[in-house]
């Protein structure tokens, strides 16, 4: 296995890692499309390398009110997968799936919250399954956890996890939207360097 370091990312490695994110998010969005009965478009997947302390701002204002669904990935990858929805989109998602007319996050009942969390679970499963099919890597996922709060506070959880061993982190970001532009959000997967190496080493032979 070749030693790799994302801090010296080559163009070839960038293409591989971007494509992995693209396939994962694409699969997740197909699942979401089926759940809500709408077609979703995904943006170009972007690969970012940032200082850990910048993570609190990657979704914009750290005080932005979002719903975040987080999944821990273990096994051959040490990663965290975050589905972030602006609260309007979380409301829209609940309304589409349950055929309701909720107008604010404060109105969410237990059923609504559980549907949101389960949606995060299904989408995260689709994302990780796609990564697994693509790479053959052995991946375990945790049960998803959801928080509806300030983006910075939600992102502090993965930031702290990755800050233990690193001062920088690599994350792959895919934004998605639906035709009416009401339902939109961001998928982020954060990887450590060993996970980055594993993906690139497995997929590198194809390129």
């Amino acid at each position, binding site marked *: 296995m070749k030693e790799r370091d994302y801090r010296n990312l080559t163009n070839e490695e960038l293409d591989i890692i971007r494509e992995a994110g693209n396939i994962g998010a694409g699969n997740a969005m197909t699942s979401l499309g089926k759940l809500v009965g709408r077609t979703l478009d995904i943006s170009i997947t972007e690969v970012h390398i940032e200082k850990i302390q910048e993570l609190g701002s990657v979704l914009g204002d*750290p005080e932005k009110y979002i719903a975040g669904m987080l999944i821990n990935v273990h096994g051959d990858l040490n990663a965290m997968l975050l589905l972030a929805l602006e609260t309007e989109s979380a409301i829209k998602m609940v309304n589409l799936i349950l055929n309701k007319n909720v107008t604010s996050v404060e109105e969410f009942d237990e059923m609504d919250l559980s549907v949101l969390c389960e949606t995060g679970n299904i989408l995260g499963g689709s994302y990780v399954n796609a990564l697994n099919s693509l790479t053959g890597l052995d991946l375990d996922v945790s*049960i998803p956890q*959801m928080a509806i709060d300030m*983006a910075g506070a939600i*992102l502090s*959880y993965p930031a702290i996890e990755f*800050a233990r*061993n690193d001062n920088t982190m690599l994350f792959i970001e895919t934004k998605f939207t639906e035709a009416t532009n009401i339902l939109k959000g961001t998928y982020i997967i954060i990887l450590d360097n060993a996970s980055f190496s594993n993906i690139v080493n497995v997929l590198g032979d194809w390129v």
Partner: protein
Amino acid sequence: MSEGNVVKVGMADLNVAKAPDILTTLGLGSCVGIALYDNITKIGGLAHIMLPDSTQIKNNENVAKFADTAIEKLICDMSIIGAKPSRLVAKIAGGAHMFEFKNMDDMMRIGTRNVTAVMEILKKLNIPILANDTGSNYGRTIELHTDTGILLVRTIGHGIKEI
């Protein structure tokens, strides 16, 4: 209240200011915001730490990331602009549990560990903690008003308070 500049403190970051400036850090989750204040010189300092202990981490050159090294640096930076370490008082906020992963018991939670570490270090340095808004499961934005020493804590859905 006179209008001061607003000085932003990011994650794993710290800064100091004099009255009437305001020091702020946005969206604290499991991290802890440590506000130190000298009431005579009206000098304040704010740190946003991510982890409890620099000695357990290999990659520890960013002093503002850890409770132990950040507090030391904050006191040092405040004294450079005129604060007296023996007069400092502290207010702390943050250390929430944003996610409830099943395999974690309470003592292992990073929010709790951060708060415990900060309290122990401040105690060791004889800096009294005048107020504390920590734990629970929601994010906080804090502002240290250096003209009064008031720490304003803002949340989404859990109110605003002055501590």
